[in-house]
């Protein structure tokens, strides 16, 4: 026993100090309400469980794997497609005997002369809803080169065209073929119809 516990005055004082203060009921209610609001409510009564990080990591790896596989398939398809296009291209360089495709290759003057050249076609038409250009250069496919309308009724499109003489026309509203008023016209020898003529050459 300590000296303080032996002294009756000090013992009474210590006993008084050891007593807990009375709990404030209002304060307790505020704490309980605040804790309930902060808690995440379980869905359909299921208990809340913290998922281990390992599961999330597995999902990330799966996503990364799928992405890598997709990239591989994409590049493979692209390579196959490119090789097909090269075969069809008249000016493509032949593949070396070893089968390896050169990354860079020399472009000779004749090849450059044969490369497609961007050309802009313009037509003024304020009443049309849709205009596209059709011609030898796009297999007369109306979906190939739709023209864009400016605010003042000028329709235009710029497309690459291989050097040479080409016949073409404008398709207005998917039905009417009209000639280019700014270009010379010629008669198609086989179909007996008129078309506009353009000669394209590299500057």
């Amino acid at each position, binding site marked *: 026993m300590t000296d303080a516990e032996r002294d009756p005055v000090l013992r009474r004082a210590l006993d008084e100090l050891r007593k807990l203060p009375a709990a404030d009921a209002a304060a307790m209610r505020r704490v309980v309400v605040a804790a309930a609001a902060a808690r995440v409510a379980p869905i359909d009564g299921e208990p809340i469980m913290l998922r281990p990080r390992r599961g999330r990591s597995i999902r990330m790896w799966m996503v990364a794997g799928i992405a890598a596989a997709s990239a591989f398939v994409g590049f493979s398809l692209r390579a196959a497609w490119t090789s097909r296009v090269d075969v069809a291209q008249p000016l493509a360089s032949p593949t070396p005997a070893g089968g390896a495709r050169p990354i860079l290759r020399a472009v000779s003057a004749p090849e450059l002369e044969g490369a497609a050249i961007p050309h802009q076609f313009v037509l003024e038409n304020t009443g049309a809803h849709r205009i596209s250009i*059709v011609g030898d250069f796009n297999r007369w496919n109306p979906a190939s080169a739709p023209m864009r309308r400016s605010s003042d009724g000028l329709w235009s499109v710029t497309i690459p065209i291989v050097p040479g003489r080409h016949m073409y026309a404008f398709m207005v509203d998917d039905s009417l073929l009209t000639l280019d008023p700014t270009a010379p016209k010629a008669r198609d020898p086989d179909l007996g119809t008129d078309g506009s003529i353009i*000669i394209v050459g590299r500057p």
Partner: protein
Amino acid sequence: MTRRSLWLLCVFVGAHAAGAQDSLVLAGVGRETAVRLAEIVDAARSSGLPTDPIISKISQGVLRHASPERIVVAAQSVATRLEEARAALAPAPTPADITAGENALGVSGVTRAALQAVRSTSPNRPVAVPLGLLAQLVASNVPAKRATEIVTDLIRRGASNAQLVALGNEVNSDVERGVRLIASLDVRLQGLTAVLAPPAGGSAAASAPVGLQSGSGPKKP
């Protein structure tokens, strides 16, 4: 025929003959026509000819609502001209050259001999643009022989493709404005040859631009 069916037609004709037949039927040209068109395209491909001009002609025919029979005849005509052009532009024409040759042969008056003349003048370079100018001059009623002389003369003088194209466009513009074709040709050729070198190994007479030999040009000393 809708745009979609037209495009289906062209895509599948260009893809495979067998597949093309079905697609052509779907496109509404009839089974018999489809078979014949597919055969034409397939034969051209088998013999190493470019098939784009044939497919373009078929597509154009459908777009212009030509009769199936006319489309077949047109496609066959293109195939025949492609063969002729390849022979005329031998020994190693590019597909672009063959296509340009076919286009030129389609203009009434342009002959195989004219193509050979252009090729022999420019044996190692693409001739799509010179043949395009030749075709356009003849289509504009310049006699084929004279048009051939003009084009080969300009090639010998080293005219660039851009200069050939510009000549054709300027003459066309002049004619659209009402200028006589021959007069326009004379003036434009005079302007062009003034900036070009005389033809290699040419005599004084040969150095005169071909277009001025109509008699309307300046007198030679």
